[in-house]
Structures are given as structure tokens and as C-alpha cells.
């Protein structure tokens, strides 16, 4: 019990910070209110350190996942916090600066930051989940605050529209994966992931999972597709990203996606991977989802004029890439007798790619967040149209460089971080002998090159257009955004060589997969291949 509690220290830390931030945000002192982001960052850093140092207590088939995922969440969370700093109550705070009186009822700062931290807490909880109920609650905790954040991220109707679409479709998605969870419970008789894994292993050994289990897993996956923005649950993505402010969109690109993938990994880890592949229907499902997701995301991104929509579709496509990693599985077939390496483990590849994607995509959104113009209604308007980025090199060279690096990073151009991230997806998928999928992945990367290259060309190569209807873009006053942008760009380069490999190793540990042992019945012959029975034995006794 104590161990379990210890494993929750990061979440508890974050929760305490959340409460502190909520109170602090209501302070009439502007200086105190402005401490919110700092406090949030401190909380995240502290939580990250705790996550790194505490031993995970989960008994799921992926026992090391929480450690990696929580650290990752804390790390990228810091970047997101930097990016979000100064977003909330911007207009209102400006009014106060001009002498208006502070009215706690009208201030959103506290809620905004506490919602952010709630979401991050949810994400960490998600990573630490060892029970379906926990997982469900954590997933909802991730999502519910984001609905609000989208709604309040700008004062425009667009944000409201985005929020309503996000919320309603999110509820639909939640209902679907909830039903899936229910069916899994029904099939396994327990919500404890470790138990489920054992039961499933038993069932598989005795002739395969029953239809309820299969149906449950499939529904869960489909529901979680909403979180990771995968086809067919992807429709909301571009609208929501576009409607939300860029920092919030960056958060949406990372936080729910990470939660979704962690949940998917946790659920699929419960299914024993005979010979390294999933049961056929689930395999087919993920295959179809992966192909559809990356293709649809990429081809639609080709047509976009809005940078945020483009990045939203690219986010969809990246989910497709990561689904390839999911399909590649924990890399059992090759790892017989040895630890799964990131080269063969698709799970590790996915976990690492979440980090890579987070770093790269935050950069792109940060550039959009940094560039703004005053719109007629007085509220600053972020750069969104691709024409805004035209000739950025001339006006804001550093932002142009960040955008180019992010685009190339997302493209996976060597030697940037994106390439280092994509490589394990390739290797693990090939290890799982998913050759056609790898080819499709390659071709999709090529399609993606179209629009990433366009981003690069627009920013670096074109000349800026001066239109009277389009006031010039200025740098947003928030230094956090700039810092986030530069940090992300630096990360895209530096992590490819220094740190990146270590993080990959960390992801590799995080993806340690311990399949549950099968209780050998009288009739059933031992189905375990001798090779993968051994680590099980060590773990289970």
C-alpha cells in the first residue's frame, strides 16, 4: 500500500501545486497572479524528479511505463507551461494594468492554470494506472479540463465552437471506450490490468479470446482513437486546433494523444502477444486504423491554408505513424531471451516518439503563438494563415528558423530528432514483419514532405507579402512563448545527438513488457515457447 502511494508522489505533488495555483490565481495582487506559471513549472519539475526517483509500483504487464511516461509528461509539460504562460486573462490583465479593479469573478487565471495542471495530473495518473477504473478516470481527468481551456483560450466564437465540438465528440468517444472497458471487464471479470492480462493469457492459451474480449478491446481502441486523433475519430481535430489558441492547441496535440497512447499500450499489453503479433481481429483493426490515419492526415494536410489546421492534420498523421509502432508490439519475437530493445519494441518506439513529437510540434505551435497582430476587436490574433508565415525569414529570422527546424523535425529529416524518432518505428515494424505497413509509412512520409517543405519554403525562401488588409505581425510580448520555441528548436537538433539516445534508452526501459504466465491446464499443452516463458517465471513468482 505504501509502495502504491509512493508511486503516486508525482501526481500528489502536482495536485498540491494545482490547488496552490488555483488560490494564487485569485489573488488580487498582479505579481502573485503572475507567479502561477512559475509555480506550475516548479510543480512539474518537482513531479518529474519524483517520477524519476520513485520506484513504480504498477503490476501491469508494462511495469516500467509509469516512470518513463511521468517523466516525459513533466518534461514536455514544462515546455507547454512556458508556452501557455501569459495566455490566460490576457485582455483582462491588460485592463487591470490600465487601472481597472481586480474582480476575482472575472479572472480566469487560477482556473486556467489549475485546469492545465489537472490535465497533466490526469496524464500522469493515466501512466500509472493499473486498473481500468483508474484508467478511465484518469483519461477523463485529462480531457475535462482541456474542454474548458479550449473554450476560454480566446474570446472569439471560434474557441467556443471548437470547445463544443471537442466536448460533444469527446463525450461520444468517452462513451465508446467506456463501453469497451465494460466489455473487457465482462470478459475478464476484473478491472485490474494484471488480472486481466492473466485471464486473457489463459483464454488465449485455451483457444483464443472470446468475442466479448475482442469486442471490448476493439471498442476501447476505437474510443481511444478520439484521444489520439486517429481515423475515424479524428474529425474534431483540425477544427479544435484551429479554434483554440496556439498554446492550447499545442497542448491538445500532446496531452490527450499521450494519454490515449498510454491507455492503448496498457490495454494491448493485457493481451498476450503470441509470437509477437496481436490476435487477428485486433491486429487487422490497428492495421487499418494506422493506414487510414496516416494517409487521411497527410492528404488533408496537403490542402490546408491554415497553419494550425495543417499541424492538426499532421498530428493525425503522426498518430498513424505511432499506431504502426503499436502494431509492432513489444518486440517479443526477436527479444527471445534478451531484453526487448527499442529497435524491435514498437511500444518503446511509440513512447519515444511521443517525446519526439511533443518537442517538435510544440516548436511549430510556439512560432504561431509568438506571432500576432492586433485585430479590429482589440484582441490579439495569432498567425494562422500560411501567408502569415511567408517571408518570415526577413521579419523574424529566429522564428523562421524554429519553424523550419520544427517542420523538418516533424518530417523526420535526418539528422534531426524526428528522424531519430522515426527510426525505431521503422525498425520495430520491420521486426514485426509488417513490411507493407512500413512501405505505406514511407510513402506517407513522402506525402508529408510536400507540406512540411511548403512550410519551410514559405518561411525561409519567400518574400513577405505586404497587404493593407493584413497588419504586420509582431512578436507576442510573452517571453515564455519565445523561450518555448527556442527550446523546442534546440531540442530538435541537440536531442538527436546528445540526450536523445539516452531518452530512447529510457523509453526502452519504459516499454519493458512482462507477459503474464499461463496457468497450464491439464488438457492444454504448454503453449509457451521456451524462450519467452522464462522472464515470465521470474516476474510472476
Amino acid at each position, binding site marked *: 500500500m505504501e509502495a502504491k502511494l509512493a508511486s503516486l508522489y508525482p501526481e500528489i505533488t502536482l495536485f498540491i501545486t494545482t490547488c496552490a495555483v488555483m488560490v494564487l490565481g485569485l489573488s488580487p495582487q498582479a505579481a502573485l497572479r503572475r507567479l502561477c506559471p512559475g509555480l506550475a513549472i516548479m510543480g512539474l519539475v518537482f513531479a518529474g524528479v519524483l517520477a524519476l526517483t520513485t520506484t513504480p509500483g504498477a503490476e501491469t504487464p508494462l511495469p516500467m511505463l509509469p516512470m518513463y511516461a511521468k517523466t516525459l509528461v513533466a518534461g514536455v509539460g514544462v515546455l507547454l507551461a512556458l508556452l501557455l504562460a501569459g495566455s490566460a486573462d490576457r485582455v483582462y490583465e491588460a485592463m487591470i494594468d490600465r487601472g481597472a479593479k481586480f474582480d476575482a469573478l472575472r479572472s480566469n487565471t487560477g482556473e486556467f492554470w489549475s485546469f492545465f495542471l489537472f490535465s497533466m495530473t490526469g496524464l500522469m495518473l493515466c501512466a500509472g494506472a493499473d486498473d481500468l477504473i483508474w484508467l478511465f478516470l484518469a483519461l477523463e481527468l485529462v480531457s475535462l479540463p482541456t474542454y474548458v481551456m479550449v473554450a476560454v483560450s480566446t474570446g472569439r466564437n471560434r474557441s467556443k465552437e471548437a470547445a463544443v*465540438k471537442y466536448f460533444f*465528440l469527446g463525450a461520444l468517444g468517452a462513451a465508446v471506450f467506456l463501453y469497451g472497458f465494460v466489455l473487457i471487464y465482462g470478459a475478464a471479470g476484473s478491472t485490474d490490468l494484471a488480472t486481466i492480462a492473466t485471464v486473457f493469457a489463459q483464454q488465449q492459451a485455451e483457444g483464443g479470446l472470446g468475442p466479448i474480449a475482442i469486442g471490448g478491446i*476493439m471498442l476501447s481502441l476505437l474510443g481511444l482513437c478520439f484521444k489520439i486523433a486517429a481515423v*475515424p475519430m479524428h474529425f474534431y481535430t483540425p477544427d479544435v486546433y484551429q479554434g483554440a489558441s496556439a498554446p492550447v492547441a499545442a497542448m491538445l496535440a500532446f496531452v490527450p494523444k499521450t494519454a490515449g497512447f498510454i491507455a492503448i499500450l496498457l490495454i494491448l499489453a493485457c493481451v498476450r502477444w503470441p509470437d509477437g503479433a496481436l490476435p487477428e481481429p485486433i491486429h*487487422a483493426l490497428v492495421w*487499418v486504423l494506422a493506414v*487510414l490515419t496516416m*494517409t487521411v492526415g497527410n*492528404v488533408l494536410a496537403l490542402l490546408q491554408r491554415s497553419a494550425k489546421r495543417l499541424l492538426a492534420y499532421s498530428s493525425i498523421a503522426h498518430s498513424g505513424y505511432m499506431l504502426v509502432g503499436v502494431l509492432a508490439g513489444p518486440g517479443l519475437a526477436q527479444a527471445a531471451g534478451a531484453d526487448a530493445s527499442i529497435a524491435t519494441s514498437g511500444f518503446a518506439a511509440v513512447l519515444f516518439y511521443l517525446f519526439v513529437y511533443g518537442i517538435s510540434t510544440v516548436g511549430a505551435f510556439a512560432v504561431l503563438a509568438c506571432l500576432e497582430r492586433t485585430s479590429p476587436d482589440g484582441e490579439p490574433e495569432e498567425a494562422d494563415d500560411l501567408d502569415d508565415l511567408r517571408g518570415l525569414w526577413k521579419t523574424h529570422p529566429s522564428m523562421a528558423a524554429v519553424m523550419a527546424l520544427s517542420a523538418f523535425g516533424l518530417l523526420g529529416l535526418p539528422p534531426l530528432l524526428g528522424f531519430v524518432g522515426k527510426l525505431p518505428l521503422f525498425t520495430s515494424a520491420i521486426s514485426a514483419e509488417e513490411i507493407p505497413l512500413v512501405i505505406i509509412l514511407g510513402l506517407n512520409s513522402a506525402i508529408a514532405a510536400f507540406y512540411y517543405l511548403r512550410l519551410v519554403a514559405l518561411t525561409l525562401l519567400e518574400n513577405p507579402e505586404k497587404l493593407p488588409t493584413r497588419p504586420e505581425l509582431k512578436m507576442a510580448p510573452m517571453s515564455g512563448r519565445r523561450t518555448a520555441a527556442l527550446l523546442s528548436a534546440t531540442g530538435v537538433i541537440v536531442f538527436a545527438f546528445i540526450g536523445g539516445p539516452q531518452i530512447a534508452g529510457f523509453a526502452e526501459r519504459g516499454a519493458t513488457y512482462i507477459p503474464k504466465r499461463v496457468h497450464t491446464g491439464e488438457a492444454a499443452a504448454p503453449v509457451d515457447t521456451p524462450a519467452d516463458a522464462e522472464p515470465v517465471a521470474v516476474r510472476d513468482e
Partner: protein
Amino acid sequence: MTSGLDMLTPLADLIGSGALAAPPAGEKAAGAVHGDIGAWVMAIPFLPLLGSLLCVLCAIFKVKSKLPAWITVAGLAGAFVAAFVMFQQTTGADGGSQWAVAKAFDWINFQWGSEGQALVANFSFYVDSLTCLWMLFVTGLATLIALYASEYMSHDKGPGYCRFFFAFNLFVFSMACLVMGDNLLLLFLGWEGVGLCSYLLIGYFYKKESAVAAAKKAFIMNRIGDLGLSLGVMLTFVHFGTLEYAQLFHDPEMFPKYLALAQAGDFASIPWQVELIPILLAVGAFGKSAQFPLYVWLPDAMEGPTPVSALIHAATMVTAGVYLVARFLPVFAANQAALGLVILIGAFTALLSATIAMRQYDIKRIMAYSTVSQLGYMFVGVAVLAPSGGAFHVFTHAFFKATLFLCCGAVMHGFAGQLDLRKLSGVMSMKGWLIVSLAMLVGCLNLAGVPFTAGYFSKDMILAESFVNGHAIAGWVLLITAGLTAYYTFRVFFRVFVGPTHAEPGEDLHPHEGESMEEAKANFHAHAPGWAINLVLGILLVGSILVAFLYPMHWADDMIATSTAGGIGAGDHTGTVLGMDPHKVMYYVSAVFGVTGILIAAFLHGPKGLWSLGIGNRSEAETSRADALVPKVGPVAHLAERKWLVDELYHATIAMPLRVIAHISHALDRLLVDGLVNLFGWLPRLFGRTIRPAQNGLLHSYAIRMVGGVGVVVLLVVLVTLL
């Protein structure tokens, strides 16, 4: 450890060039070569090369004098001396095959096999009597013609002059590599090198589109031949594992083996590769030596300055094909079909171009066609296994044809580019043109094969041998051709050099200031050749006569006998002409043909008076009795004048279709190949456009699609799994 610096040490070879490499050990009878001829051998190619480099320097330093010409003459004279020394040293001994290899430096030396096999083609030279024979007249004539050109080209002093002599020198260098190279690749280097120089020199007057086109045509036609040659080289390498003559000709396992088999009549034992080699080489020879069907470039090549026509396109380069066949006679002898092919092509070309020459009016072109025709003789000569006849004809022809061309050049030079035999008449009686006319006369006599001229003897050797060796049909064809040759040769002489005096200036007439073209024409005065031209023509005049004396000395026979082509044609004398021994009867028969031709020319074109023995009646430049004859022979005369429409035929069947194919390819490239690429680039976009309407922004549409999507995916998966 071999560092990079060590890698370059073989460069020292370059500095220490001239060392005479001993023939590979274990060779039979590598004859004793007197003294160290290495340095002399090296001088032959490298003096001209030095000359061409100096010409480049002249161009860089903008020399405006005749310096390049003198450099050239001096260098070539040196080369000639060296060639003579080489000849002396190589052939002075008492018979037996004598040869030597002199290595300058490694060119290609590549070990490729695991057993130390190597692809070796060095800058080294193979010297035997065949080499000497060729190099003697090449360097000799080149020297003379350079001297001639120093005057002929004098109006172009400056960059053009440098360019001319640069290419001239480079040509002699290339020719030396071609003839002297000790391996097929060096031969190929020379082969293409002379092609390049020919290209540069034909296109010398680069502002004339016709010159540029002619240069291009020459190069490309030659390249067609080179294709055959290069394949032949490759086949030789693959079959014999070497390209070096020293091995090919002297290793008993190589050419000698197959030659022996062929001479024993055991053709069945000769593998197909060996049989194919001569055919491929022959294709190359036909290209370079302007034989049917690749002869059409040579007449056009007359666009170049006349010294070039004389040296390259009459005397030397075009005989390279004959050299090739003569050099590789052992392997040709191993394939009867190849010999037959060469005879067939040679005889046919000789006749065809003679008929064309009869109807041309441009005297330089007539000479060009006569060159093609005479080259046909040479091929037949070599291919009927009478290499000495062929080689001797090459030798004599070089002299008298160079003479003829230089005379034409003198006329052209003097009459502002006029070459039309209808516009000129009685040049001999003009002041200062005597030497030219005499040289012309001697040249014509040689070409027509008038008895006791050199041309007469060398032609007889070929004719007789073709009957002797059982190629009577070829013999008869060549005899008829001899008659035609005599006719068209003297047609030129009678029209241009004797008869009433008449001269119209040609296209190169440049009016003086304040003078119209008409006035310029009216005031036109031919300017007679200067000392250099006269000197050269004088030397050649004498030379052409003296060459005849080599025949009774059996010089050519001796030269061939000691070379790699020696001992091949020594079969039984079986053929007869009119039932008599060909060698004897041919003296008379060919004399009759030749004289008849001259008489017909005299009758049709000769002027009144003694020059045409009283049978001619031409009284003006423009017309002659022949004009009346033309309508009677109908379209034949017209077709001959149009060169049997061969050029047009090639254009219609090869050039045009190829061009059309090229255009089609280009269109295909843009539309199909690139179109497919663009299509693949466009497909994702198309797909995107197709599914984009699904993103219509309506909440409930999204909901329907999500639910429907879930349904479809699940259905799909269930179907896939069940099936």
C-alpha cells in the same frame, strides 16, 4: 605502406620516356633491331604534340606571324627524319620479321583478375615495316603540306592560323598513335584523335553553316564506324585477354594459331569470336576510310581548307582503315566472309564513287570521290590477300592525290575559291601557273593509271592479285572503274588546265573599297601561287614520278613481307585473266582501259588542238560535247550528278526518323514519364480533395461519420478476420 606520393611515382616513366622495352620474353624471332631507336620512335608522335602545344602558346600570346607554321614544319620535318631513321634501323637487316616495342608511359594498366590478368594499353609503340611504310609518307607529306599551308592559310594569320596548325600537329600526333600504337586502344585513341582533328579542320571556317554541318557529319559517320571498331576491340580483349600487338601477333596461341588454321583450310576450328573480330574491325575501317555505306562524309569534308583535304582526307587519315585491315590481316584471313565483305564493299564503293565523280563539276569534289574510289581499290587489294599491292597503292596514292589536291587548292586560292570546272579553262597558259599545271598533269596521269606511272603499277598489283586469288568479278569491276577514273580525271585536266583561257572568280571574292561586286568580278585577276606552294608542288611532282621506281625494286613487297601482314597472301597463283597469267596481261589490259578513258575524256572535253590529240573540239569554258550526251543517257546522268541520292536516302531513312524518334522521346519524357511522376504527386492531393468535404464543420456530421466510421472499420475487421 604506399602513400599517395608513391602512387604518383610511375609518373617518372613520363620523364624517362623513350626507353625501348624488350619484347616480351618467350616470343619467337623478335628480330634484332639496330641500335636504340626508342628515342627516334618517341620523336615521331611527340614532336607534333609539342608542336601543337606550342601553337596553343602562340594563340595565348596572340602571335600574328607565321610562327606556328614554321614550328609545325620544323616539328614535322623532325618527325619525318625520325621516321626515316626508324625505317632505316628497322628494315636494314637481312629479312625476317623485325619488330620492336617502345614504351613511353603507362596509359591504362589495370590488373583485374584474381590471376593477375591485366588490361594493358600503354602509350607504347610497335614498330615494324608496316609502321615504317605508313609513317614515312604520313610525316613526309605532312611536312610538305604544312609548308604549303603556311602560304595557303596566310590570310588567316592570328588565332585562326594557330588553331589550324594546332589541329594539324595534333592530327599528325594522332595519326602516329594510330599507326604506331602497340595496342588496339592506342590505335583507337589515334583513330578518334584523327577524327577530332578532322572535325576541327573541316569546321575550320566555322562561320559557314555548311562547313559546320560537314564537320559534324564526318565525326558522326566516323563514330558509327568506331562503334564497330570498339566492339571489335572488346571482343579481341575478351577472347585473347590482351590488346597488345606484341602478344596478339607473336604469341603462338593467338593470331598465328588461327592464321595457321585458316591457311590449312580448317575454318571449322576457328571460334566464332575470332571470325567476328574482323567483321567488327571492318566496320570501323569502312567508317574511317569512307567506304560504302559510310562514305558520304568524305565529299562533304571538302569544306575544310584544301591542305587539310590533301593531307587528311586524301593522303593519310582515310587510309587508316586500310592500315587496320592490313595490320589485322592475320585475323581477317581467318574469316573468308570478312574478306569477301571487304572485297565486295571495296569494289562496289570504287565503282559507285567513280560514277558520281564523272558527273560532278566541283573539281575538289571530283577528287574527293576519286579518293573514295581509290580507297576501294586499296581495300580490295588488301582483302584479296595482296597487302603489298594495297599498301603500295596507299603509298603512291598518297603522293599523287596530295599533289592533285594541292593543285586544286592552288587553283582555289588563286581564283577566289572557284572550283567549278565550267568556270575555268586554260589555267596552264596563264602566267605563273605552269608548275601547278604540270603537277596536275602528273597527278592525273598517275590517277588515270597511264603506263609506267606509280599509280599504274600499284593499281596493277591489286588488279592482278584479285584475278590471281580468284576474285575475278571484283577484278573486272575495278578494271571498268579504272577506265572511268581515267575519264573523270582527265575531264578535269582538259577542262580546267588546257583550252581557251577563261576564269571567273569564286565566292571568296571580296570587293575592294568602293567597288561593287560586279566591278570586282570584272576587275578580277587570278593571283598565281607563291614560292611555298610552287616548291611543295615541285617536290611532289618529282616525288610522284619517282615513286614509280619503287615498284621494280619490290620495295612494297619487301616491306609487307617483314611485317605482321607478311606471308599471308602467298597462296597458289590460280586465277587467270583471259586465259593468261594475270601479272603480265594486266599491264596491257589496264593500260588499255586507262588510255581509253583518257581518249574519251579528250573527245568529250578536250580543247581543240594538240592537248587532246586533235580529237577534242571544246572552244569555251562552259560547254563541251558531253553536254549533248547527257540527255541521251536519261536519268542515269542526272542521278549520278545527284550522287545517286544517297545523301537524301540517308536523310529520309535514318536522320529524319531518328530525329522524329528523338522528338517523340522528348514528348514521352515530358508527358508519360514525367507525367506519371506528377500523377503520383497529384494523387494524394486528389484523394485529399475527395475526402475533404467530410470535414464540413458540422458537429452532427462529424458524429455520424465517427459512428459510421467505427461501424465500417469494425465490419471490415470482422470480414477480414472471418474470410
